[in-house]
């Protein structure tokens, strides 16, 4: 009887273990294909030259610059609003209907499909606010999409600041804002940065929100400012793979661009993961 039960346990645990490693296998397979077929495309030229010959040769510099510009606008809008929202929710707000409403807003914003953000950005930023298709409109769209991630991460970081810090500061006659600004925020800063990197990495890889708000197939020159339309890494992959002039002949460019994109995104993620695990160890000691 007990043997049977332990045997069932062994079988079940093996199944669970297999399930867990299927994820690893999926990640490994995807990364393997992108890496093995993409690395040959990578060269100094690829990273520093614009595309040539109707995008069948040359590099991806404008896409890198464009993605950078989009991320810049994203973080400039999402970080201050996100951190301020988290401060309100965690430091000032009294539980009640208003807070419940704000949280409902954040949760639902997090669930809005990326293409719907794109539709909204098109109708609101590009048309109503007359920004046109630009890094600004695309970045703002991505910024709103990233907001819930940054609010969540910042709140978690604020929660991990010991309550005694706040009490000690208030007990000395500091105002609440002085307490937040001088004691709470510095202590929560690493956590907030980690969360922001994660949020930004997601924005960098998104395609649907920028398709009709910020990114275009091709620009002859590098963007001059955030008011220009831009090329972007994720959109470039989509364009080359589905609507390029020579889809089969430019496979290596597609793989190369994909490799650059996941290197960028994974790089940001690994930085954040490592930062966070260091942080946790520090907290423990």
């Amino acid at each position: 009887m007990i043997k049977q039960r332990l045997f069932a346990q062994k079988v079940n645990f093996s199944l669970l273990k297999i399930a867990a490693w299927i994820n690893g296998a999926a990640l490994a397979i995807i990364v393997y294909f992108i890496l093995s077929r993409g690395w040959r495309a990578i060269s100094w030229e690829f990273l520093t030259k614009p595309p040539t010959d109707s995008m069948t040769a040359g590099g991806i510099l404008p896409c890198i610059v464009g993605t950078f510009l989009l991320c810049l606008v994203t973080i400039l809008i999402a970080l201050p609003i996100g951190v301020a929202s988290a401060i309100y929710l965690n430091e000032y707000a009294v539980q009640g209907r208003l807070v419940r409403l704000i949280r409902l807003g954040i949760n639902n914003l997090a669930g809005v499909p990326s293409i719907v953000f794109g539709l909204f950005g098109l109708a609101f930023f590009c048309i109503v606010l007359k920004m046109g298709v630009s890094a600004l409109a695309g970045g703002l769209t991505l910024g709103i999409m990233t907001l819930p991630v940054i609010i969540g991460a910042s709140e978690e970081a604020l929660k991990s600041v010991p309550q005694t810090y706040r009490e000690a500061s208030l007990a000395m006659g500091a105002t609440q804002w002085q307490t937040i600004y001088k004691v709470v925020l510095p202590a929560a800063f690493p956590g907030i940065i980690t969360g922001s990197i994660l949020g930004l990495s997601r924005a960098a890889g998104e395609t649907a929100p920028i398709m009709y708000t910020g990114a275009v197939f091709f620009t002859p020159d590098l963007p001059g400012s955030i008011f220009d339309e831009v090329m972007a890494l994720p959109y470039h992959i989509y364009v080359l793979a589905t609507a390029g002039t020579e889809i089969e002949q430019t496979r290596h460019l597609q793989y190369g661009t994909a490799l650059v994109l996941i290197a960028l995104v994974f790089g940001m993620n690994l930085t954040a993961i490592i930062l966070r695990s260091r942080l946790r160890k520090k907290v423990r000691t």
Partner: protein
Amino acid sequence: MEIKMHTRGLDFFYGDFQALYNISIDFGINRVTALIGPSGCGKSTYLRCLNRMNDLIPGIKVAGEVKLDDSEIYDPSLDVVTLRRRVGMVFQKPNPFPKSIFENIAYGLRVNGVKDKSKITQVVEKSLKQAAIWDEVKDRLNESALGLSGGQQQRLCIARALAVDPEVLLMDEPASALDPIATQKIEELITELSSKLTIIIVTHNMQQAARVSDRTAFFYMGKLIEVNDTDTLFTKPDLKQTEDYITGRFG
């Protein structure tokens, strides 16, 4: 006895739960008053009413009178920030900020608008000396306060509280997390400080109350059972309940 602070008929509620019933105590100027009683008796809650630290908890309600000198501290027109500068607090566990030793002490001055550097340096030194920790830290003022021992951290926190020149100092079991030697230092410090400050200390250690305080108040189940001169309370208490507690025959 000249009164620095007092409460009259103080009731305190967490939501529907009444934590304090009708507490009236006078705190003499430049005296040490100890609040004793078993854990959960409301002594810490009472202490936190005196600088409105309980305001941080949602859903609380306070009724009755709490006066500092002649002003009611729960008067809506009274500014809680100014109140907390005048009524300092030292917490149960040492809680230095993750900043340098110097910045920990300077913090209170900075938030209260002092900008003059030489003044700050001067006050930091004076406060650390008052808290009897100057000799131990004077060569490493720029190092993190988190590198100090527990006893040193607590004296640092006392110095930090002294830097803004409070009139009353509330201490919530300031030595409960410390070893006996560090405890002794804190107790000596309390006695010394009492020449300039009104001190109210919560402790569960009756010997400590007997050693450091002039007056002692005994709390039980949210009620004030007895308050008297420390010598009297510990030698011939008025009530049987108090006697049972101080002789250890209790709960």
